[in-house]
């Protein structure tokens, strides 16, 4: 059937089967029929037919089951007043741009919540656990224009203060109604907690990061320079990105809110661009290297070749994975850049820049230059996207391992072949840089003896 332009939606009340997915009978009895979770699905969405039981989407576990169960674990704790320790965490949504919803994220608990919003600490955690604590974060929403946030008043000021805090900070979040979750059943959005508009906000004494604070008060420091400077001083990427998103950096008049998803890639891109410039002055590595890491059913094989800096990232999605839900065959996406870098946004999106930062960090540390090719296989067990951090931390983990070293590209490719399910031929076919390394001759080859 040809899909009509206007999708038919099924309202939440028709999706009561969701409640049958709950493991915990008591919660189910409590919440059955209540309004705490809203759902939406297009009429022909697989989930509505499958109802979590038949694995129609091809994933190895049902993401809706995982999400709904984690969500209802927090649901009983929710009310119009959320009182807890924010990790700290803030979120700037994309809907309605330039009038966006910004605000703090607060879990209804008073404990050490610092890792709730610090992906640098998440590597190795299971998907259920990550969905679990992400679902705890109640998001307060406050409508604000991205450029006129300075005049938006106290709620916005406090949100920014919170974003710059170094450690969990007590927050009392008053909401206009009980927060509720929203689950789009045929879309693959990040795991997310419930949300509601903010009525009132109180933030306890926030201790600021000294370096970040300095950049915040310096209204003559450009945002990109602030990002670079803080990174050099050892501030975590996540913390830089959080401050970046609340308009804490940049020339005074140019400051603005930046959507959370944009701010992540902006920071990855600014930092790796800067590192790339330095890397190009370093000597080449001496051998062919392979770095490996697997996490959340995402396997990375990173190739480094002794050649001038250039970079490529290719990802392969199995049928049934996040970005290839209904396909019958494996889908491969990729993009690359040469020595001089790129000026357009990479086709594969934020992952490209996150992985680029991770590999640049290693080359910078070793003070070496290389041609880098990041290959990723996402397997059916990767049931929902958890965010770009997964790529950054997964590749960073690969970079922490001792590389496998080879004398020829062929040997290195053989190793990659032995680890991947997809034949190496397909990877080579997709990869501009591998093809280039295999086929493009060097002019130096013709300098020595006269070739007949």
């Amino acid at each position, binding site marked *: 059937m040809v899909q009509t332009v206007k999708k038919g939606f099924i309202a939440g009340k028709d999706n009561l089967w969701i409640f049958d997915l709950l493991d915990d009978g008591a919660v189910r009895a409590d919440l059955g029929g209540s309004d705490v979770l809203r759902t939406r699905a297009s009429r022909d969405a697989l989930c509505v037919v499958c109802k979590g039981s038949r694995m129609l989407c091809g994933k190895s576990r049902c993401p809706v089951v995982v999400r709904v169960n984690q969500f209802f674990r927090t649901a009983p704790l929710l009310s119009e007043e959320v009182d807890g320790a924010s990790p700290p965490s803030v979120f700037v949504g994309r809907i309605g741009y330039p009038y966006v919803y910004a605000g703090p994220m607060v879990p209804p608990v008073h404990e050490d919540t610092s890792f709730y919003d610090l992906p640098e600490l998440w590597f190795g955690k299971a998907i259920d656990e990550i969905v679990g604590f992400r679902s705890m974060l109640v998001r307060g929403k406050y409508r604000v224009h991205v450029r006129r946030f300075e005049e938006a008043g106290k709620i916005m000021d406090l949100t920014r203060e919170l974003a710059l805090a170094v450690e969990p900070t007590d927050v009392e979040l008053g909401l206009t109604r009980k927060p509720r979750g929203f689950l789009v059943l045929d879309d693959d959005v990040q795991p997310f907690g419930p949300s509601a508009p903010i009525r009132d906000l109180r933030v306890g004494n926030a201790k600021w990061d000294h370096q970040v604070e300095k950049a915040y008060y310096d209204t003559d420091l450009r945002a990109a320079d602030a990002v670079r400077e803080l990174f050099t001083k050892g501030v975590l990427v996540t913390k830089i990105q959080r401050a970046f998103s609340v308009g804490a950096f940049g020339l005074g008049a140019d400051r603005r809110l930046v959507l959370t998803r944009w701010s992540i890639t902006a920071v990855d891109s600014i930092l790796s661009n800067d590192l790339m410039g330095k890397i190009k002055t370093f000597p080449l590595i001496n051998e062919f290297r392979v770095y490996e890491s697997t996490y959340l059913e995402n396997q990375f094989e990173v190739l480094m070749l002794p050649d001038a800096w250039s970079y490529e990232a290719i990802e392969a999605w199995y049928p049934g994975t996040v970005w290839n839900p209904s396909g019958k065959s494996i889908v491969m996406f990729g993009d690359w850049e040469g*020595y001089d870098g790129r000026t357009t946004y990479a086709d594969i999106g934020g992952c490209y820049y996150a992985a680029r930062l991770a590999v640049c960090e290693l080359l910078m540390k070793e003070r070496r230059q290389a041609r880098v090719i990041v290959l990723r296989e996402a397997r059916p067990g990767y049931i929902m996207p958890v965010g770009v951090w997964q790529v950054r931390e997964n590749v960073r983990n690969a970079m922490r391992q001792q590389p496998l070293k080879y004398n020829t590209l062929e040997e290195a490719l053989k190793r990659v072949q032995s680890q991947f399910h997809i034949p190496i031929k397909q990877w080579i076919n997709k990869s501009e840089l591998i093809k280039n390394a295999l086929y493009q001759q*060097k*002019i*130096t*080859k*013709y300098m*020595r003896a006269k*070739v007949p």
Partner: protein
Amino acid sequence: MITSISILVDEATYDITPDGMKLRAMDPSRVAMVDFEWPKTVFDEYACDAPTKMCLNITELLKLLKRAGKDEAVELSLDEKTGRLQVTISGKYTRTFNMPTLEAAEEEVPTPKLAFNAKIKATTQGLREAIEDAALVSDHVRIEVDPEKLVLHATGDLMGANIELKKGSDALLDLEVKETVKATFSLSYLNEIIKTAAATSDIATLEFSTDMPIKLDFQQPKEGKLTFYLAPRIEVE
């Protein structure tokens, strides 16, 4: 001229002798080489007492040179004591910039030792357009030459292109072929090289052999020399 060099290298070492200045450099991935010479006759005035080397950041130099208008004179002078290059542009008014020189590379770059089986003389403009046509469909191009014509053959993922320059056409001036030759080259390199060379040169001479590097010589208005070498792409199945 400096633009032509800048597409391959960011930093380059000039050899300066009483007879003129020379430069030979490879791009960072060592796929292409530029061989450039300006004898002293190219300059309105030229003075050099003893041979020296000067390494410059070409990108920065280019920024300064771009400030010079059409009828303005540019004077470059190297102060060996301070190691700085002075760039004076005089016209409606006089501006003097100075920039640092970098540590000169000791490495002497030899030219490739090649024997060519085909030699093609063409207009730079005609070549440029042919290369741009090919670049629409692919990122590399196979160049074939037989005694009658030059053919560019490009195959992309979806589209293909075939461009013919026949003997006697306006774009193709001369063709000397010992045997039919073909070789494949990266279009991004070819495109950049020819695009920038077209600014100073009307006539180009290409020389190559099957699966060997191509030599692109761009005839200069005075006695200058601008030659590029580009290594081939050899696909082995």
